[in-house]
């Protein structure tokens, strides 16, 4: 069923980065504007799916040699670790903390432990969607 779809492939090569950059933007914007780990993760997986549609699964696997099940595991560790971290400060499980800091280039920035939690969500979402899509796709 492989057709050499040159236009789609060329467009994909460019848009892929745009989509991924956008998803990262969505992820970081999450706390103040629409976005967050869930949407960001989905958007990234959308980008990879686009790659899958333009090229075939083997090529994509060569470009991104990632074991997505491990991504799920790491994501879960992030989420649970953030939650458990609060326990060390004698706070209930999953208590978040935040502060404001002046960072070079970025200026006044808010730093949240919620970002770590959201990173977990982000990774799990990518891992899960890509695991499902890859296993189903590979079984062809």
């Amino acid at each position, binding site marked *: 069923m492989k057709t050499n779809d040159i236009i789609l492939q060329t467009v994909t090569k460019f848009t892929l980065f745009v989509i991924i950059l956008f998803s990262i933007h969505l992820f970081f914007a999450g706390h*103040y504007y629409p976005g967050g780990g*869930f949407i960001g993760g989905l958007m990234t997986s959308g980008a990879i799916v686009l790659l899958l549609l333009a090229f075939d699964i083997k090529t994509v696997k060569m470009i991104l040699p990632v074991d997505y099940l491990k991504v799920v595991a790491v994501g879960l560790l992030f989420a649970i670790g953030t939650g458990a971290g609060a326990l060390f400060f004698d706070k209930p499980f999953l208590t978040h903390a935040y502060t404001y800091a002046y960072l070079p280039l970025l200026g006044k920035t808010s730093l949240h432990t919620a970002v770590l939690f959201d990173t977990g*969500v982000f990774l799990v979402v990518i891992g899960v969607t890509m695991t499902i899509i890859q296993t189903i796709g590979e*079984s062809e």
Partner: protein
Amino acid sequence: MSLLHLAVLSPLLLAILIPFLHKYFKSIHTGWFLLPLPAVLFAYFLQFISTTGHGGTVMETVPWISSLGIDFTLKVDGLGLLFALLITGIGALVVLYSIYYLNPDKEKLNTFYVYLLLFMGAMLGVVLSDNLIVLYTFWELTSFSSFLLIGYWNDRERSRYGAQKSMLITVFGGLSMLAGILMLYIITGTFSISETIEMSNEVVNHPLFTATLILFLLGAFTKSAQFPFHIWLPDAMEAPTPVSAYLHSATMVKAGIYLVARMTPVFAHSGTWVWLVAGVGVITLFWGSFSAVKQTDLKAILAFSTVSQLGMIMSLLGAGAAALHYGTIEDGYYIVAVTAAVFHLINHATFKGSLFMVTGIIDHETGTRDIRKLGGLMNFMPITFTLAIIGTFSMAGIPPFNGFLSKEMFFTGMLRIAEMDIFNMDTWGILFPIIAWTASVFTFLYSMMYVFKTFMGKYQPEKLETKPHEAPIGMLISPVILASLVIIFGIFPNVLSHSIISPAMGSILPSLLENGEGFDVHISHWHGPTAELFMTIGVITIGILLYKFMPKWAGIYSKFPSRMSFNRFYDRGLELVELTSKNITRSYMTGFIRTYLVYIFTFFILALASTLIFKNAFKLDMSDVAPIRFFEVVLVLIMAISAITILFAKSRLTSIILLGAVGYTVALFFVLFRAPDLALTQLVIETVSVSLFLLAFYHLPQIRRNEERIRFRATNALISIGVGAIVTMIALSAHSNKIFGSISEYYVENTYKKAGGENMVNVILVDFRGFDTMFEITVLGIAALGIFAMIKLRLTRGKELDENK
């Protein structure tokens, strides 16, 4: 977090390290890393004697789920301390023994020691927690870890069978106990054991009392292998011998005893408790000793012996509980029973522990445990023989060993039960001393069998796998220590009286003491020519006679129909359960997702519709509904048309695209209603799921419309219309029925203040309701694993089929 909590949790913490230690220090036996822990814990717990010895207790709390009254409260009192010392003390000896018993080249030591540590921690938790729910949690952890330990050699079918059996029976008991705990909570309103004990009067007079009592006893009886739940213990002997020595003689099986002792102050004011505990105990005592005599495997003999000895301790606790029933210590005889229970608990741990280790040595050095093959080992293994003599003579109740002392006191207790007036005891009570005496004869008999058939008699080298020789010194240390304790406790029975036994009794019978007062325990060898002494003499005489003429009467064992045995009932029951559940499952699991959706949605309609109707919950209030705009009408039309077109689509591709259209329209709705987050999510989800559908396109079965008959399609239509109608009704009445103010105001106010974010949706997801999100992504992860496993497994199976061609 106190040091005490750390002590209880330390085995679990060490368990995490064991795999790494095992991996990186291959040349060292993993057991050596373990050994310091129980030894240090033992020393740590010894310090508490100075407190508990004067009736004091140490209590430490870590808040856990305080709103539900569940806190991780640990309490060290006499009883808990006694058990903690047993667990850590015997634990250290068992670990030492196991280092020489388990060959590091052949066994998976890392898993073994992880299980053992899990067990040790769980057991400490059971005996030291003061909260019933915490106790229950640890209690089930002991069931699980013992399941793992029994099934340690999981390539053997008997091990798996034994592990499953112990798990099914003890977890059944555990769940009954949970029900009992909840009932007790209903009665008292607290999970704290100390507070429950103070409310014991209310407990006794509550209508739920008898049910609670029975449920608790089910937990205790299954754990302590009481008749007729004893059947799991002999099968549990498939575990490695150190495990048998530890779990099945010294600690886990005694958790049931512990529970009975711990709950005695709560329940014992009623005659039912005395009657049940003492009755079941004495039956177990008899049945265990009777069955032990017919065994030919050394470990099986010890297993049944443990069953019987546990029964003995149980019956003593029952007899002693009568003291609370009568509410007096003037009549010291009941106190004697409790003293005997505590004393025998210690004695049993010492002699049975050493005997299990002796059995392990025999097994290790000769390759068999069958007494028909063994014999004449005395000349080859003099030290082991001495240890066996000490252990068995103590078990048989022969002076001057410690078993004799507790047995004498046991007879006293049983003789007194005969005189009680609980439940017409004056007529039936006479059975107690009779059964107890008969059981003691059998106990004597199997003890003699154990030692003489193994070490005396004819040496049969042709039946043994290896030439027997004395065990290495390392394997002998632990049993030698235990056997010395047997002798020390036998000759100086009052070593432990004031430090250990009296405080433990204080915890069992607290209400009989004034503040700061302790039980005056004095154990002595010579009571004068009492009935108990003559009973012992009778036991020894009849026992020797029966042993001499064993071939003449042993035929009675074959008379007993094996078809009637409890094992048989258990096996048949298990088969029946499997068969029935298979049949039931087969009748509704068709393998078509369509069928399951029909079940789900039918249930959905029925449950919600009936709630709406019977609760009179449907309400329509259109007063504050926003006007419908033109765009919305258009979108609804698009959605409806696409949804209906799906039904008539001829190809799957069309259906997928139409479904996508419905999803994108929903996203547009979110845009209209100013929910950009939801719109974004919906859009991306829709995209990913449509492409997923397309990827899976080739795997989906062909659409075959004709297979569905008209009637079936009518049902489908009915169900879909029903679901639609119900959802609409719920949406409408949810809007009209606003009992509570909307929670969104809270989020609007606090999103920035408390979480420092401006996007409410995201803040709710990661902060306010972060717990939900955490579990949601966990579920997602599990789903991914499931799909991964399903598809990969199918692929490998296909490969195998190819190879078979």
